[in-house]
């Protein structure tokens, strides 16, 4: 008997033989082969849905007309998409769809005849006109109608749903009169984001997208990531701000608002404005996902307040000037401050090119080691990684965490500060059963998904982790083989853990020995395990000690160097990793951001150069600046700092210059020039190059940003083999570069020093809080939804506003001491904040008062903000000393 020859993995589509990969459906194979099959409900990356029936096909030898988005490829399958019966069927289905969608715009017979200035006279009713749809010219339904060859006869009758357009939620406009019920939005929210803020409600003929009982998005659990807008094929969901704007071109770049490194498509209109950011669905960094910041926070680049000309101080006032004059002044003045009297602060969002040239300028031209990032970027988080493992960076790739066994998240508000890094966690938890272990005294969005949420007394997080580590070792749950082969120092570690007995931990943190044992068991047994940590609310001098425990925990459980495992320090600042890699930090003995105020006040630093984001500088810095002799600021806006400057140089925004940025997962990616620099602004590196040459430096000759990067890469061993050209591909490169490309997981082939070093544990809990004026610690929280709490939404003319009384959670004995009973009206006073609310005696921790707010409240504030850069001002959830007192009802 002869076996049938194995069939090649190909199908025939309309006579063309195309290959397919295992598990692909017909539509996926067709798209990969560059063939068009019309579809409206399918979206790459989401589960097949088969609702719109646009992609129906016929298979030779089979009955019926299956949808190609749900039809798995089989070798040798012969598929036709264009038979007369299919075309008739598709047209019929489309007509049904159009029976509820205004379609004057789709079927108008003048669709190709109209010029840009024509006014529509009786071809289509006013409300049906193509120009009144925000998705005009970018509507997928239109493409489908044209492809299907629906008759262009103006216009058929349709049933208008007559629904109110939802314009009162932040950032979004929703017009469900245009909805074709493809369910892409609800599926993206559920499958790809794990939020479920919207669902299909009602049934049959009345089914539409909606929220529970028709509430606004502010209460339904929406994180305003905009994913639903990006997938909507029609004009139902759109961004409010650039609602009517049309893109002339789309440029692939990287969002630099946070260090997750989401690849985006910047849409630019004919006036050269960046109108829209859309997540890049092909990017390995974010798989098409963005967050409220990236999606709605990039329009500051178009702001009318942008600086367009250099300003110099004349007779006490800043007046417009030329680059020639301004740089001449800077060159002359700075010449007098060479050495330690000069310092340079750069925004952590600066490109690698800016940082490299700034560092080189400061060291070589100014002879000063005083360069630093302007904000606290928590270098302590990576210090133990260097000591123990070798590299100051996250060990793995965020998106791999979708397949982890357990993820431990320590004091991190990921959803707000590193949003897209939370997406694989939420998806993994919901779809692959990834266990989520959260350690945080605050209630944040991820706690909703937590399998175990340890809520310790603020300041005792490190002790809890030490207790967990001890419990892992006591229970014999460590990865013995890994520890023998790959790590050293186990005995010292064991010895240092002796004092973290369950009783000691419970006493310090309020976490019971059972909870500790459960958490230890969960983390050690669910492999691979990963640890994400921002260490919010842990004092700077304690962060390194706490991070060391985390490194130990990862090593002891054998969770380093394997896919979907590892350590992820969540540092703030868009390009904080690039600055780390390029050594953008003060030299030994130099002045950094931390000591700058004192150095200025002591007269040690006399001249300061500031690169970008000076609006975020703390007030104390602002005050200290008056002691400077010379201040030069490169920035986008005339901030408070810039107003004090002697010279202000307009800087190009991240959408206006070529450059690179490095994400937390070591991904070096290219930011591309989408529009020309505004006015006479220049990238900081270009201005500094010019300045250096004026000051007589020879070695500052760069043809373009790519030349800068090549020089930077030569000097930074981690960037070996990287260049703009090498980074041009999708998703850039995760350093270190190897002959086969980037490195998703560090230490896969061992550690640079041979073995990793386990670090002895030296954490201590913060001493009991004792302050007469502010006797309590306030732990603020912010979550997307609070199903238990009554929320009233004020449906005003403008934005909807969340109106509610906050619930102030108190420990019963603390409440009793202050004479507060359940339901009493109370006032909470903490440093810099004051709020009214109702007391709830449900607190579990003595001395701690908690209030959990709704993300919707923040979203309306961000939407209404007048600041140029509201997304950089998302208030952190800081634990603060507080007092609570009863007030009159």
């Amino acid at each position: 008997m002869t076996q049938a020859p194995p069939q090649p993995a190909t199908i025939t589509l309309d006579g063309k033989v195309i290959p397919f990969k295992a598990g692909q459906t017909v539509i996926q194979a067709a798209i990969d082969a560059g063939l068009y099959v019309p579809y409206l409900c399918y979206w790459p990356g989401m589960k097949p849905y088969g609702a719109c029936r646009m992609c129906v096909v016929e298979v030779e030898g089979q009955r019926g007309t299956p949808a190609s988005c749900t039809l798995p490829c089989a070798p040798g399958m012969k598929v036709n998409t264009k038979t007369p019966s299919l075309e008739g069927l598709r047209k019929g289905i489309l007509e049904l769809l159009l029976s509820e969608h205004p379609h004057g715009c789709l079927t108008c017979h003048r669709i190709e005849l109209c010029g840009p200035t024509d006014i529509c006279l009786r071809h289509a009713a006013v409300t049906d006109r193509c120009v009144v749809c925000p998705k005009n010219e970018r509507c997928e339904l239109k493409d489908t109608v044209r492809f299907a060859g629906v008759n262009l006869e103006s216009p058929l009758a349709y049933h208008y749903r007559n629904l109110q357009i939802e314009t009162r939620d932040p950032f979004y406009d929703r017009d469900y009169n245009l909805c074709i019920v493809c369910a892409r939005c609800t599926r993206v929210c559920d499958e790809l984001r794990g939020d479920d803020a919207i669902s299909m409600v009602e049934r049959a003929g009345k089914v539409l997208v909606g929220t529970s009982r028709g509430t606004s998005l502010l209460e339904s659990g929406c994180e305003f990531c905009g994913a639903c807008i990006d997938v909507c094929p029609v004009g139902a969901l759109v961004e409010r701000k650039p609602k009517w704007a049309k893109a002339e071109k789309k440029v692939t770049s990287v969002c630099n608002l946070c260090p997750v490194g989401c690849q985006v498509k910047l849409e630019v209109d004919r006036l050269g404005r960046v109108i829209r950011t859309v997540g890049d669905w092909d990017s390995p960094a974010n798989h098409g996902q963005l967050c409220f910041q990236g999606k709605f926070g990039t329009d500051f680049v178009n702001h009318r307040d942008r600086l367009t000309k250099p300003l110099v101080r004349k007779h006490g006032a800043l007046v417009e000037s030329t680059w020639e004059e301004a740089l001449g002044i800077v060159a002359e003045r700075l010449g007098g401050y060479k050495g330690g009297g000069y310092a340079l602060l750069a925004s952590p969002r600066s490109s690698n090119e800016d940082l490299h040239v700034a560092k080189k300028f400061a060291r070589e031209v100014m002879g000063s080691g005083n360069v630093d990032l302007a904000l606290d970027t928590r270098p302590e988080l990576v210090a133990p990684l260097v000591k123990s493992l070798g590299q100051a960076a996250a060990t793995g790739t965020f998106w791999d965490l979708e397949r982890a066994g357990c993820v431990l998240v320590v004091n991190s508000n990921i959803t707000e500060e590193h949003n897209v890094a939370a997406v694989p966690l939420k998806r993994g938890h919901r779809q692959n059963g990834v266990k989520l272990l959260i350690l945080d005294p605050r209630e944040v969005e991820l706690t909703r998904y937590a399998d175990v949420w340890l809520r310790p007394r603020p300041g005792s997080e490190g002790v809890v982790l030490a207790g967990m580590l001890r419990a892992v070792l006591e229970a014999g749950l460590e990865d013995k083989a890994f520890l023998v082969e790959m790590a050293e120092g186990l005995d010292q570690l064991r010895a240092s853990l002796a004092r973290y007995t369950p009783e000691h931990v419970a006493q310090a943190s309020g976490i019971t020995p059972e909870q500790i044992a459960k958490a230890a068991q969960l983390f050690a047994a669910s492999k691979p395990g990963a640890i994400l940590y921002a260490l919010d609310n842990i004092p700077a001098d304690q962060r390194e000690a706490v991070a060391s425990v985390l490194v130990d925990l990862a090593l002891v459980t054998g969770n380093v160097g394997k896919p979907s495992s590892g350590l992820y320090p969540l540092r703030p600042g868009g390009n904080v990793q690039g600055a780390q890699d390029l050594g953008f930090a003060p030299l030994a003995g130099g002045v950094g951001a931390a000591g700058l105020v004192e150095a200025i006040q002591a007269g040690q630093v006399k001249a300061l150069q500031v690169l970008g984001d000076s609006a975020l500088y703390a007030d104390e810095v602002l005050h200290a600046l008056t002691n400077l002799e010379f201040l030069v600021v490169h920035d986008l806006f005339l901030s408070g700092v810039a107003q004090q400057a002697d010279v202000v140089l307009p800087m190009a925004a991240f959408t206006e210059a070529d450059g690179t940025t490095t994400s937390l997962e070591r991904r070096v990616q290219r930011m591309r020039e989408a529009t020309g620099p505004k006015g006479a602004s220049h990238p900081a590196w270009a201005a500094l190059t010019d300045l250096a040459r004026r000051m007589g430096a020879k070695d500052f000759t760069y043809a373009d940003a790519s030349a800068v990067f090549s020089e930077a890469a030569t000097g930074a061993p981690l960037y070996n083999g990287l260049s703009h050209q090498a980074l041009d591909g999708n998703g850039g490169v995760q350093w270190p570069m190897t002959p086969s490309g980037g490195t998703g997981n560090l230490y896969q082939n061992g550690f640079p020093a041979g073995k990793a070093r386990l670090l002895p544990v030296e954490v201590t809990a913060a001493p009991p809080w004792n302050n007469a004026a502010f006797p309590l610690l306030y732990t603020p929280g912010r979550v997307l939804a609070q199903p238990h709490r009554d929320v009233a939404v004020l449906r005003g003319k403008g934005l909807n506003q969340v109106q509610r009384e906050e619930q102030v959670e108190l420990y019963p004995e603390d409440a009793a001491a202050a004479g507060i009973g359940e339901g009493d009206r109370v006032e909470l006073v903490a440093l810099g904040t004051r709020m009214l609310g109702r007391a709830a005696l449900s607190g579990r921790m003595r001395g701690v008062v908690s209030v959990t707010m709704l993300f919707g409240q923040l979203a309306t504030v961000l939407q209404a903000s007048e600041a140029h850069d509201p997304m950089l001002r998302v208030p952190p959830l800081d634990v603060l000393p507080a007092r609570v007192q009863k007030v009159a009802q």
Partner: protein
Amino acid sequence: MLRERVRKAITSQPQPVVTVLSSLLAVEDEMGYIPPEAVEEVAEHTQSTVNDVWAVASFYTNFRFTSPMERVVEVCWGPTCHLMGAQEVMRCAQELLGMQGEGDTSDGKVTLKYNTCLGACSQAPVVMADHKLVGRCTPERLAALLRAERTGYHAPGAHS
């Protein structure tokens, strides 16, 4: 308290597999309707979101979201009951309550519903009054039920 009643209904479901739908049914059985709080409680209990629970709840026309009237009368409309005279029973009920289709009386006392099948075809035509099955129902029996002296209820339009 409302929430506690709802919670108890959700947590005391006897079957091994608890779903959004089964929980909603348990609430409907206990309360006679799905109050807004129940959507939240079911979401919590089934580790779902309020939007998902609402998607299920709003799909089924048999759930009601406002509290029912004092008395609920359901007239079976299934084929067997139809053949055995349900139309007459229904017409009598509508006449007595002064309404055209189904719904709540304007005085807020009685809810009248069509029921697709009460599963008691052997006793057709069947009516369910306040969760109690009334078999072989005639217009007269129904009228008696509605006018029953024990409730003292006098439906608008009822001749007594």
